[in-house]
Every structure is written in structure tokens, then in C-alpha cells.
């Protein structure tokens, strides 16, 4: 008997779902662990939870169904965690709260690399913002990337899917640089690339493939010297790579002094909300790749894609329940 069977019965998990949507932090934390579990015994319970939440409809306070999911990527040390902290703090301010006096519920999934040798991980993104990470409107979960390239684990996609039905905004903080298919840029509805002054001249910006994936650029630590130079170099590079009508936005901020944070928060209004289809599709695609291995792409292409294949197999969770033998 696995631990799951003893502690996480379907009835309990469903109770957690209702409680989490009502704002119970412990219920959401337990539910989140359920969705992180790399354990086949968890699938039926998760299926039941998703079914209940999809039937319940909109998140308690949101006008539209699901959360906005923003990927925050950037090299270590640029200040992603501090930036998240500044945004969480800003979300408590009067200007952000709605008529009822409550503000958006915000989740943060912070992914750090696991040790190749031991499989363990040192997760220190929460460290700098311990206070605000524990605020009533926030939910912060640290995750190990479990050795996945591209920076996020299956657990990240799974939890993002859960939180999209409970919270209003989800930030996914990673070092992932958008080099592979199974990365955070496909899971999120917007990708914000965080940089800091002196990080390289404009040629460096152009070279990195991440310029194309980002929807918005955030230049942090703008209170540092040389920030102005980096800002103009970045703006220049963004203009050069503009494909559509307007170049993508560049925000100069300082998580320390709060400069530009309000404007960055405003960027969220333009971010699309996630859809069940996209979230399920992403989780499913990752599962397929793992189960089907190298032939996954071909198999799915032959069968009209992961979504179509899953629907034929009776829905996403059902697909996971069934074992795929060949195509």
C-alpha cells in the first residue's frame, strides 16, 4: 500500500480542492504535492480533482476561468526572486485590489536544478523573500527540475495546471533559456526575460535564441551604474528583432527601490489567460514524450497530435490510465 492510498484518498483530495479554492493554504499545499507526485497511483485522484474543478467553473474571484501564467526566466543572479517579491508586495497595494477589497491570489513555482550525482536539490529562491512569500494572498512552491533540460520538471506543468484553476496569476521562475521544446515558454501564456545591467553588449542579446521567445523584457537593478547603457542596447536589440507592428515592451525596474514595478504589474493586463486545452495539452505532450520515447513526435503526428490522440483514448487522464502499446 503506497503512502498515497493511505493519506490521499479521493474523498480527501476533493475536500482539499474545495478548501483550496476557498483560500485554505494547507489544503492547497497538500493538493499541490498530490499533483507533483511521480506516482501512477495518483492519476485517478488527480483526474477526479480536475473534473470537479472544471465542473465548478470560474475561480472564486476571477471574471474569466483560468489564471494567467507568466514564465520569468533569466540567468542566476539577475534578481528573479527579488522581482517576484516586489510584484507580490505590489499586489497587496490599494491600487491592485478590486472593489471587494481583495487582491489577486498569486502562485509562484520556483524551479532550481537538481544535483546530477545525488538527485537532491538546494532550493533557495524562497530565501530572499521569506516574509512576502508567506503572505495570505501568495503561494510559493520550490521545485527541483529533476534533471530536466530546459529547466522545468513534469511536476511544474502538472502544478501549473492545478493552480490555474485555483489562483489568478501563476509565476514560474526558472533559469531555463528556451532552447528546447519541452520548456516553460510553451506552458506559460507569456514569457518575461529578466536581465541585469552589464550583462553583455547588444550582440550578446541578438545571439541568444531567447530573444525570440520572450514576450517582454525586464531590465532589473536599474539603480545600478551603467543601467542606462544596457537599457538602450536592449531596446535597440528588441527593435531589430521586431517582426510585427510594435516592438515588444522593455521594462526598466529595480526590485530594490520599486522603480517600474507598478508599470510591470500593468503588463499583466495584456497577458492571456490559460485554457484547459493548452494546459492539458502541455502536460499530455510531456507525458507522451516520456512514455513513447523517441518515437513520440512521429506517433503523435500520425495520430493528429497529442490532443486528438488523447480524446480518442478517452480524455487526458484516461490516456494516462491506459498503457500505450505501440501507436
Amino acid at each position: 500500500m503506497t503512502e498515497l492510498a493511505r493519506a490521499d484518498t479521493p474523498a480527501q483530495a476533493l475536500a482539499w480542492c474545495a478548501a483550496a479554492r476557498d483560500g485554505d493554504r494547507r489544503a492547497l499545499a497538500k493538493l499541490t504535492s498530490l499533483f507533483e507526485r511521480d506516482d501512477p497511483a495518483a492519476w485517478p485522484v488527480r483526474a477526479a480533482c480536475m473534473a470537479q474543478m472544471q465542473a465548478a467553473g470560474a475561480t472564486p474571484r476571477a471574471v474569466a476561468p483560468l489564471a494567467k501564467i507568466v514564465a520569468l526566466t533569466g540567468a542566476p543572479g539577475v534578481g528573479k526572486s527579488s522581482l517576484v517579491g516586489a510584484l507580490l508586495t505590489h499586489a497587496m497595494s490599494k491600487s491592485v485590489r478590486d472593489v471587494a477589497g481583495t487582491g489577486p491570489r498569486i502562485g509562484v513555482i520556483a524551479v532550481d536544478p537538481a544535483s546530477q550525482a545525488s538527485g537532491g536539490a538546494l532550493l533557495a529562491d524562497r530565501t530572499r523573500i521569506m516574509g512576502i512569500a508567506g503572505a495570505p494572498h501568495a503561494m510559493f512552491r520550490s521545485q527541483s527540475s529533476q534533471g530536466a533540460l530546459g529547466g522545468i520538471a513534469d511536476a511544474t506543468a502538472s502544478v501549473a495546471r492545478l493552480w490555474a484553476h485555483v489562483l489568478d496569476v501563476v509565476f514560474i521562475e526558472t533559469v531555463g533559456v528556451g532552447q528546447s521544446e519541452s520548456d516553460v515558454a510553451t506552458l506559460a501564456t507569456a514569457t518575461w526575460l529578466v536581465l541585469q545591467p552589464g550583462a553583455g553588449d547588444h550582440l550578446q542579446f541578438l545571439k541568444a535564441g531567447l530573444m525570440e521567445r520572450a514576450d517582454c523584457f525586464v531590465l532589473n537593478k536599474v539603480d545600478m551604474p551603467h543601467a542606462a547603457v544596457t537599457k538602450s542596447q536592449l531596446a535597440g536589440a528588441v527593435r531589430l528583432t521586431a517582426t510585427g507592428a510594435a516592438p515588444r515592451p522593455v521594462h526598466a525596474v529595480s526590485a530594490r527601490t520599486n522603480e517600474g514595478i507598478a508599470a510591470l504589474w500593468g503588463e499583466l493586463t495584456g497577458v492571456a489567460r490559460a485554457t484547459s486545452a493548452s494546459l492539458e495539452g502541455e502536460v499530455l505532450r510531456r507525458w507522451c514524450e516520456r512514455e513513447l520515447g523517441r518515437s513520440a513526435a512521429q506517433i503523435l503526428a500520425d495520430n493528429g497530435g497529442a490532443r486528438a490522440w488523447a480524446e480518442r483514448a478517452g480524455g487526458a487522464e484516461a490516456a494516462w490510465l491506459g498503457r500505450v502499446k505501440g501507436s
Partner: protein
Amino acid sequence: MTSPATPATGSKAAHLLYDANGEVTRDAPWVFRTYGGHSSAKATNALILEGLARGQTGLSIAFDLPTQCGYASDHPMAVAEVGKVGVPINSIDDMHAMFAGVPLERMNTSMTINGTAMWLLALYVALAEERGVPLSTLRGTTQNDIMKEYLARGTYVFPPEASLRLVAATYEYCGQRVPEWNPSNVCSYHLQEAGATPAQEVAFSLANALLVLDQIKARGELSGAAFERCIGRVSFFVNAGIRFVEEMCKLRAFSELWDELVQTRYGVTNPKYRLFRYGVQVNSLGLTSAQPENNAWRIALETLAVTLSRKARCRALQLPAWNEALSLPRPWDQQWVLRLQQILALETDLLEYPDLFEGSVVVESKTAALKGEAMALLQQILAQGGAQAMLESGALKQALVASMAARVDHIARGEQVVVGVNRYQEGLASPLVQARDGGRFVADRAAIDDALAQLAATKKARDPRRVTEALAGLTAAARSLAAPGGGVAMMEASVTCAHARVTTGEWAEALRAVFGEYRASTGVEGARLALRADRVAGLRARSAALAAARGRRPRLVVGKPGLDGHSNGAEMIAVAARECGFDVIYAGIRVAPTDLAVAYVDEDADLLGISLLSGSHLELVGELVAALNSLGVRRPNMVVGGIIPQVDVPALEALGVARVFGPSDYQLDEIMEALMALVEQGVAAP
């Protein structure tokens, strides 16, 4: 001090010391200090007077964590820590009480205070003014060294930029008004305590000194002759470890490098201003809780490093007590170790000779090697932008964490011998720890209540308008700190606050509003700790088994509640747990118990590990359990590590702590196995 040639009096013996008149003389002893303070200003005053009566010749004041971190004793973050590791100083009234009967004009007072150093200096100055003592007679030191706070000690308040300006400001003020005061001590002591090698100790602290001097030079308030005098006022606070021959050579290297540096970098010509002036506390990291009586011998041997060589002798010495690893020392313990200084200085012939090692082939070779190593490291630091850049990037911290990890590793493998710990562990029990109070000092609850009462009385009696005006003046001065004359203005504003009975918390809060507060990097990123391979393999297998059985790795939250910032132990646990396959959420230092509780819940951790060294474990664990209960966690899985007296373990267990790790539990493998077992038990029976 070299003996001048005086041909008129005939030839001189090379082994004698001569004064300016050619008469045979003897060096005056260094200043004997004892580091102390506790419970309340009044209690500390008694300690000071007792120490002076016993033959101490200088004071070394320890402040409690709230005072060091800028909180008044009645602040929520402060309540559990008042009076534990030092004296609580809330206002000038406490200064009057602490220095009652102490002649300021004849005393040499060292204050171990950093983030709030400017405030304590302002209090001392204001005290002198209220007593009619001329500022020109004040002698002493404010430690005022922020770099090691960020790296190893944790009692910083403001961000590096602002903190450096405050340090420069104290130099500017003292240069003008309090010329005999040492505005700061560049500290290498804490670096060694955090695991630094001798070369790292020298290089990091020299980089630190250059950082401070460059800041002062850039501000331009002190220039020409005044700047040279300022350089002459720079003093150091160093460490001396058990490898006392190497340590002695390290100090010779320090002297020579400092002399060379201030000549080449700042063009100082006057030899008086190029002297390497330093005070010492000998190594505490190496003091053991097993066979603690051995520590008396260790302390004596370490003292040799800083006294044997006249050329590199300390100006002031304070010694830890033999039972340092067990708890805060009692007055008797401090008296006993003071006697060592008195015997060495006054009974032996050490002070009758010129330098004993001049011309020694071995000593000069070793000194040169250390100089080379340190200089190379210093050049590296300067090439990467200097101490501040490497501090903010976390590189310096990572270097220290790596050295500490290496040290822990060597001891665990027996490559570094520690008698009583990894060699000769068996022996007769020590009679010294069987004393009625268990050989430990316990802070006096009544005295602490007294301190709180005094704070309330001060706040009631003072003129509120004067307080508001003084704080407004302080805020304005803080905003113009970078302007010409801004440093002196800021000190003057602080002195005005002191006279108005502003509290420590109010002073710090006003400045937090202007400068912001700071969270330093942890240094654990990228650290590796090699544990014993077979034990690690077993632990990794157990982590993997948990991951297979329930789809999640064992999950540990590690953090330090309260104000104590000594994070090395917690960092080592975090790194070791990662090596064994845990997912570790490292919560850092100075975490409010409520935030730790939320982290435990949000992260759905299997185990919560907290580290406490300040003696406030009962209060803080109580707060933590209350916070967990209010979040719906009835039976948390918790362990506590640090300086926890055996006698308090039952109380902690009654609060729900599963296991307490004291100083004698140092084997990381065993700690990891204990943690894994607790996780497995929690999973099996939630």
C-alpha cells in the same frame, strides 16, 4: 618601535630592549580585555567593575542581538533575544547605567557593534558630553565592520552601499572630534571562524580595508595630512588558530603587507601611520564541547601566536573561556582566562626582548610564502571589482562556505586531528562540568525584565517633541549622507537623538526607511560537501526509495529563526542533505517563526530543521509551534540544532521537537541518517 643607536652609551646587546635614552627597558603589556555583557545595563556594569578590579585594563562590550540588529527590547523580533548574548542598550539611560563608576577619560572601550555602530558611538559621545568629559580623551573602538557581517555573522542592517558610507562617516567625524578613537576594526577574526584559510583571512580583510579607505578617499572629506592620519587610525581585529606557528607567520605577513600596501596605494610616508595595529580574540571555532578542559590548553597555545613575535604583537587581547562551546561563560570562567594574560605579560620574560624571530630562516620563509599566497588572492579580488562586488555577487561567501566544508570534511575523515573528538575520545569525565549550574551561564530573567522596565521608563519620561525633531533631523542628514560634510552631520544628528532619549529601534527604523533593509546571499549555491562514500550511497538509496514509493523526494526546510546570524551550521546541513538526495528549502537567517511555519506548510515539507546559537531556543521554538498550530499543523516533524544545553532538551521535546542536536553532534553522516530516519517515520505514520 626600534631602538635608536646611541654610541655615547657604548655597545648594545642584541637581546635587550632600549628606550629613547638608551636605558634598558621592558615593553608595556598589551591591553587585557574580556568580552562580556548580558541581561541588562546594570548587570553589565557590575560585570565591568568586577573585571576592572580583577585586572582587566580595557573593556570589550558584547551587545545583545536586538541592539546589534537595530531593534528595541520590546520589538516582536527582539523579545526572545533580549539580554542573551550581550547587553541590551536601548537609550542613553542604559549607557549611564552601564558605565556608572567607570572613568571614561581613562578607559579604553571596545564595542563589538557593527550595523548600528554609528549609534553606539553617538551614545558614547553623548554620554561623555553629559558627564563633561572632553571628547579628545575618549579612547576605544567601535568594530563597525560590515563586510564580515554579510559574510559570516549576520548582524547587518542596511545594504552594502549605505553601510559603507556610514563607516566612512564615522571616520570623518572621529578625525575631527574624537581623534584617539578607532572608528572601525577591519575584521579577519570572523572569517577564520567561518572556515577561512590563513591566506583568505589576510586577503579578504585587506580587500575590506582598501574598500573602506577607497570610500573615504572618494568622499574627499579627509585629504592630505588628515587622510594620512586617518589611515594611521585603521585597526584590525584578527584571529589566532591552533596552528600557532603558521598563525604567527600570518601576523608577520599581515604587518608587512599592510605597510607595503599603504605606501604603494596611498603614498603614506610616515612610518607611524603604516603600523599594522590589531586586537585579537583567539579561535573559538576549534574549541570543543568534548573534553572541554582541553580548551584551556588550546587557548594558551593560540595566545603565543599573537604575543611571541614583538614585531607582530597584538595591542589588545581578549580570550574565549574554556567552556565557550557549551554556553556563554560565567564570570569565573572569564577570570580564569584573564589570568593567563596576566601571567604571560607580567610573570614571564617575554616583554623584555626585541623580536625573537628576526633573521629566522624558517619563519621568514613561511612568512614570505603566506604573503605571496595572500597577495595573489588579493589581486584576484581587486581584479574582479574589489570586495564590494565580490560580496554582492556572493563569490566571497561561496569561498568561505567551500573552506568550511573542506574543514568539516577533513575532521570527519580524521585527516585533521582534534584531540578528544576524532582522536583520544576515551578518558575520565571532567570534574569541571559537574558544578551545580552545569558549568554554564544562564541569563538572569529578573535583570532582563529590569531592562524592559527601564526602556518603558525612558519612553515615558522623555519629551516626545524633542524625539520627533531629533528623528526628523536624522532622516534629513541620512538623505544627504553623500553630500559634503554629510558624514559629520549624520553623526551630530545621531548624538542629538541620543540626548533626546531616542531608542536604538527608532534610530535604526528611521534609517531603514531611507536606506532600505538587506538580505545577503547565502553562499550555499554551488557548495559541495564530500561525506563518507558508503554512508552517502546508503542515504541516496533511501532518498530514491522514498521517491519511488511516493513520487516525492524527502523534503527538508532549514532555517534560523530569531536574530542570530551565524549560519555556517545551517548551511552545512543544507548542503549535506542535498548531497544525500534531499530536496532542501533553505530559508536563511533572521526568519520570523511565522514565516518558517508557513514555509513548512506551503512547501509540504517532511521535516523542519532550525538552528539556534543565541540561547533563545525555548522562546523561539514555542513561537514556532504556536504558529504551526494556528496553520492547522498539530504534529510537526521538527529538529533543533545548535548551542542547546542538555538541561533544556526535555522542555524542547515536550514542545514537540523530535530530536535535538547539540555541539557534540558534529558528525554530518550521523545527522543525515537521523534526519532520514525521521522523514521515513513521518511518512509511515503521518
